[in-house]
């Protein structure tokens, strides 16, 4: 075998198996986001009157955040930086009231950054012990389209 061919074979594998220098794998940064979100919830839970709402938010959004890692999409470096900056923002919060605001905001900021969706219908579930459903608005109610949430 000519020397040149052996050289190609020898160097082809390491090159082809190098991880791309653009970013860590998506699950890493998304898992960091999920861990940061859980820590934010721990802070928010110190407001006893809002414990239920905090629990509902976490139940709704934490699977949605983790679900962002399940897409077959490699994140660009600027997206990874964006998520890490958002994590740094919520890590800097010390006020539990502000933490509650961010429990709603953070998942959507991350979703905007990665181009995903944390509100997928399959992940929306009514709390098991929620208040009983109220009567549906009239069929011709001007509110019906908004109340259905199908806009």
């Amino acid at each position: 075998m000519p020397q040149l061919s052996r050289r190609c074979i020898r160097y082809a594998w390491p090159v082809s198996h190098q991880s791309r220098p653009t970013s860590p794998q998506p699950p890493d940064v998304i898992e960091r986001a999920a861990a940061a979100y859980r820590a934010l919830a721990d802070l928010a839970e110190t407001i006893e009157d809002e414990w239920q709402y905090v629990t509902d938010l976490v139940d709704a959004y934490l699977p949605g955040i983790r679900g962002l890692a399940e897409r077959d999409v490699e994140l660009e470096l600027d997206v990874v930086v964006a998520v890490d900056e958002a994590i740094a923002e919520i890590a800097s919060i010390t006020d539990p009231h502000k933490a509650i605001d961010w429990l709603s905001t953070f998942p959507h900021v991350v979703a905007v950054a990665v181009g995903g969706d944390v509100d997928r219908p399959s992940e929306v579930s009514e709390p098991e012990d929620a208040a009983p459903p109220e009567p549906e608005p009239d069929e011709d109610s001007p509110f019906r389209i908004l109340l259905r949430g199908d806009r």
Partner: protein
Amino acid sequence: MRFQDAAPDARAVVYAGIQADPLVAHVASLLAEGTPAERWLARAVMNGERTDPETWRRIFPVLFGPSTDPALSDHAARVLDASLGVASRGEAARSQYRGAIVEELTARLLAGRATAVRRERRVLFDGVRAEIHPYDVTVESGDKPEVYDCKWGARGISADVLNQLDDARRHAADEDVELAAAIVVFDARRSCELRLARSTAEHGGTGLVALEELDALAEKRP
């Protein structure tokens, strides 16, 4: 039923000063023509701890990345700058500014399809004791009036707010008036729905307009 100016109390006088701040109109004007991503940017910045614009530019590459449409980037930069202007007012003032911005934004969007858009108005019904709190925004058309309560976050959805809106709708129906009553929340629809799901207050006939669907205010009666 009829609409009436709210009697100004001390709180209203102070708040009126904030509502009249040009920064409120400026932010609302930008958000009225903004994209959903820009509205999330504004919410994040005005809720945020950090006031360095470069930090926020890094958090929103979809708005400030190298491949972003320059026109969108320019507009987003104005949204960012104005939002930082609110964030820099300090914790105490910023919550009042945020509330005033949602009200102004709602009024501006409604003005896209209605002429009689008013602020801080009460609704009076025959034989019914008047509510103390005025509605943030009203559309006072003769046959199909609308009343709106505006909130910065889903956490602001309370039983008091829901009861007042539902009462108004029912009293109007008693007078054969089709009153649209809705709550506008500058927060995620899903978060609002979670809040509503735990509420025992009647809200089946009350509309919800969340951050993702604000443009609907300019398009049709909710």
